[in-house]
């Protein structure tokens, strides 16, 4: 039986590129599968909802009702991939709740495949956060995102043991370009005639990485 993937993009640190990863992954899944459900759990950081309002809804884990609204949706094997942009402020509470209610176990039972994309930073907070995840998330479901723009080639060794997904840094002027609310990665691939541009190649490389990630999820479950 096929599984429904749930991608949780997270970090206990702000401004490490969580929303950038969530945006790209959401657009990739929308392009490939025709549908995706994205959830934005952010306060003040750049918001997924602002970039992809058509496929994103806000969520929170502040109170029980918010947790129910979110988690009762995530646990459903409906064939629609889910992407969660988990704001840094909600990292501790989300994974504390997840551990307490047995999310990973229940997900396995219901053929839902959570994949935690931990966006790394070089400080101790990041290392502590990763440690917390290693204790409750199976190794095959935990992926470190090495965002070169943040980590600058110095990914801490402790975060590099398991699976690593590398996100190359863009020049600052291109980063500014893609940070615009109106920018679409898929739109750029479709409309940019010159496929040799740096940005075109960067997007395709990331989409290929996501495709491989999705394939690995399917293979694990089969």
């Amino acid at each position, binding site marked *: 039986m096929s599984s429904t993937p749930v991608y949780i993009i997270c970090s206990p640190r702000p401004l490490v590129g969580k929303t950038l990863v969530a945006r790209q992954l959401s657009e990739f899944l929308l392009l490939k599968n025709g549908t995706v459900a994205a959830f934005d759990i952010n306060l003040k950081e750049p918001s997924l909802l602002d970039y992809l309002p058509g496929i994103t809804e806000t969520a929170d884990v502040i109170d*029980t*009702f918010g*947790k*129910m609204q979110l*988690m*009762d949706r995530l*646990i459903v094997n409906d064939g629609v991939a889910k992407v969660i942009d988990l704001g840094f402020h909600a990292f501790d509470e989300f994974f504390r*709740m997840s551990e*307490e*209610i*047995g*999310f990973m176990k*229940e997900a396995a039972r219901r053929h839902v495949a959570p994949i935690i994309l931990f966006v790394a930073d070089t400080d101790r907070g990041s290392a502590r956060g990763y440690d917390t995840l290693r204790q409750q998330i199976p190794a095959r479901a935990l992926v470190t995102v090495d965002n070169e723009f943040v980590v600058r080639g110095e990914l801490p060794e402790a975060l590099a043991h398991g699976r690593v997904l590398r996100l190359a840094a863009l020049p600052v002027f291109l980063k500014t370009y893609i940070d615009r609310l109106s920018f679409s990665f898929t739109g750029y691939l479709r409309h940019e005639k010159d496929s040799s541009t740096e940005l075109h190649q960067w997007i395709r490389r990331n989409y290929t990485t996501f495709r491989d990630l999705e394939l690995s999820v399917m293979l694990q479950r089969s």
Partner: protein
Amino acid sequence: MARPAVILVGADKGGVGKTTVSRTLLDYFASRKVPTRAFDTEHPRGTLTRFHPDITDVVDVTSVPDQMKIFDTIESSAAQITLIDIRAGLMLPTLRALRDIGFLDMAKKDQLNFAVFHILGPSIASLDEIAETSKFLVDARYFLVKNFINDTTFFDWDQRTYNSYFNRIKDAVELTIPKLNEMAFEQVEVASVPFLKFVANKGPHDEAANYSFVLRGYVRHWLANVWSEFDRIKLTDLVGAGKGGAGARGGEK
């Protein structure tokens, strides 16, 4: 053959979670396949009976016919354990009545096992009742239950006060019931099912239900913590039920 056991669950005040504790006990024994019956003394409507109707009778513990219904049938009942959920404020009068009818003597002579779960409230008046209650319980197991239904601390910030109540009675054992998420508790109330059935996502007649996965998770986790306390005090041994049957452990199924 195991001696029959009687468990009294009582409190001097209402609203301290006495019936909640009774429910966790009934689920604990059910999971271990220990035959249990219960008497709900919130006569006439009952409170415990709503959650465990198949094994619970509503009685008036102040009436002699109902006292006979409970205590004259302890040895003849198929149930190994008789749990009595005592109405708030009636624990001391009930213990006096048990003394007067010779029930406490039976416990003294090892003719049955007797345990009292005294559910404490966060007030000095509640704690004052410990000494009074303990006088009746020379030959019974006495459990002081701190039920954290809110953010009370049971005076653990003031060691002198705390010790004067909790460490005064030599053989009394403390039990801690952690706080359950309020919304989870309320959903179980609305569903009117045992905690175990709620965790299993079942309705009152074992039909499939649609309870929130989050709330079921909270109840499962909480019940496991409560049962680990019962395991810690070796409750099944105390009531002569031994290691029980092949039931689920700790609420985690």
